[in-house]
Every structure is written in C-alpha cells, then in structure tokens.
C-alpha cells in the first residue's frame, strides 16, 4: 500500500473569499488604511497650524467640499463598525477577569470599553467646543 498524500491548493491571494467570516476579517484589517489616512491628515493640519492663522484657515477651507463630506461620513461608519466595535468585542479575550473561582463574563469588559469611549469622546467634543 503506497502513500501519496494529496495537498489541496491554497490560494494565498483569494482565500478570504471562501466564506463570510474571512471577508469580514479582511474588511476589519483594512481599517488600518483609515487610521493611517487620518493620522497623516492630522499631521498636515498641525503643519498648517504651525505655519500661522492664514494657513490654518486655508486648511479648513480646503476641507469644505462634498468629496470630503462623503469620505468622512463613510469613514466614520466604516471605522465605527469595523474597528471600534470590533476591537471592543475582542477586548475581553486579552484580559480575562477572575474573581475567586469564577471567571467573570466578558461583557463587563466590553461595557467598560463603551463607557470609557463615551466619556473620552465627550471630553474631546467638549474641548473642541462642540458641546
């Protein structure tokens, strides 16, 4: 009886199309592009701020067009669902809570994250004068 194990092909470029779980994962990971984009946008804003009031106002004016509105709206929703909410959902896995003999439910950590997020966002909006 001779052995001839068969290795099924695994596509390194299209494996994620095989099921919904993998597709969601790839969409989640792609949020890094948004993180990078907004980091650099903020850096360019700081550059304008450093250059003076005129440059800062020019920067603000350059942001005011429909393309940017649409992009920011899309980015906000995409980021919320595929980064923030996803990150919070996975947080309990990295920090298990134990009280005596009992492992506490992960929802405690998740709720804690949402509360902290609400508070931090409120602080930012208050500092910015939105609220």
């Amino acid at each position, binding site marked *: 009886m001779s*052995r*001839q194990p*068969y290795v099924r092909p*695994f596509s390194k470029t299209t*494996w*994620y199309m095989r099921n919904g779980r993998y597709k969601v994962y790839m969409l989640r990971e792609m949020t890094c592009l948004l993180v990078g984009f907004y980091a650099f946008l903020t850096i360019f804003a700081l550059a304008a701020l450093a250059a003076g009031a005129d440059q800062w106002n020019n920067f603000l004016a350059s942001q005011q067009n429909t393309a940017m509105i649409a992009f920011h709206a899309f980015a906000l929703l995409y980021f919320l669902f595929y980064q923030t909410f996803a990150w919070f959902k*996975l947080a309990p896995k990295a920090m298990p809570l134990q009280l*005596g003999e009992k492992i506490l439910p992960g929802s405690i950590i998740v709720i804690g994250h949402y509360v902290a997020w609400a508070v931090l966002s409120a602080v930012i909006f208050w500092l910015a004068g939105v609220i």
Partner: protein
Amino acid sequence: MELEVMRYDPEKDKEPWFQSYSVPCEDDWAILDAINYVKDNIDTTLSYRWSCHMMVCGSCGMMVNGEPSLTCKTFIRNLPDKVRIEPLENFPIERDLVVVLDDVMQKLHKVQPYIIRKDDPPEGKEYQQSRGALAKFKQYTMCINCMCCYSACPQYGLNNDFIGPAALALAHRYNLDSRDQGKSQRLNILADHDGVWDCSFVGACSEVCPKHVDPAAAIQQMKIDGAMEFWKQKMGFPGGDS
C-alpha cells in the same frame, strides 16, 4: 439527504473527486451517522476516522459545507438537504476523508506541554492547587485535538510552519497552571518566529472549536506575556518564572 463526499485513493487517483450518496436519515442523526450509514450499507470503501461519537475523542473532524466541524456534533436537522463532506482543510489528504496530522502532532510536542519545575516535589506530598487556581486554566484543558481550529485558521494555511491554535492553547494551559514554573522557557519557543506573532486574531479557530477552548484568547494573552518577557529578559532578569 444527499451527501457529496470527497474521495481520494492514493493508488488510483491523480486528484480528489466527489461521489454522491443518497442517505435516508433519522431526525436526530448527526452527520457522522449518515456517513456511517454510507459505509455500512452503500459503499464500504469509504475511509474516515471516528471513535467515541460523543465529542471527546476528537477523531471525526471534517469539513461540512465548508465549515470545519466535529461530525458527531453536527446534526442533520441544522443542515440543508444537500451536504458536502470534505477532509479537514489545510492538511494533506491521506485517503478519502483521512488527513495527515503529523505536522500538528509534532507541534503539540514542541510547546513543552508538561509541568516544568526547578525543584523536586516535596517528599511524599502532592502539589496543592486551589479551585481558583484550577479555574484559571481549566478551559484550556478541554481541547480534544480535533484540529478543526487548524482548518479554520487562514494563517496556518498561509504559513504551514505556524505553531497554530491548538498547540498554542495547550502551551497557555501550562503557562497558567500554578504548579508550573516553565513559562519563560516556553515563551522562548512561543514568542519566536512561527509562534504567537503569526496570529492576526482572525478568531475563526475559537468560532469553530467544538469544546469552546477559545485558542484565540490564549494566543492574545500569550502575545502580552511574550512582550513582557522580551523586556524582562532585555532588562537582565534571568529567564525565571513569574
């Protein structure tokens, strides 16, 4: 129901092919029962692994409609009328639904899955462990080595050298055991190349695990452990245990 089963005879076939079987099923059957029916009544040449039929031996893992599943735990009442059965993904096929598991067997050994101690046990006495200390690692002892997690893990598919979910969860079981003193030693292997850093937290392993071991959680916790260990060693602390 209709089963579409992947067949492969290493002596006759160049590549795998699908064979269809029509199986009269009872309402309470698991998919394993349907496969057993095929073997007993329709086609005795079908090869596959199974044993306990009660989710403790880990033998009957297969792809059921593309999902890595324990076939004794997957019930036909939850499946459509046409079901595709394939051997576990990411493993070479030995024959029909039997896969080659040598790679993961070697990895289970590699993570040093045993109590490591610097001293000898006290004379004639056993190690004491509170219930709380047991609760800390108990979930990671539940692994039955069914290897469904390796089938679900795309990182294992992309890099076959990745130590993988089950082996890493097993390592974490020992790292968390209060009787163990080998965490630093184990981390030298786990936090090395092809170890925990290959995991990108897809989380599929934990989703398909029939025993709810949650290997994804184990790996994330070991990434934190690994990072802390890195700085501990950099700062000159001996590879001791915490």
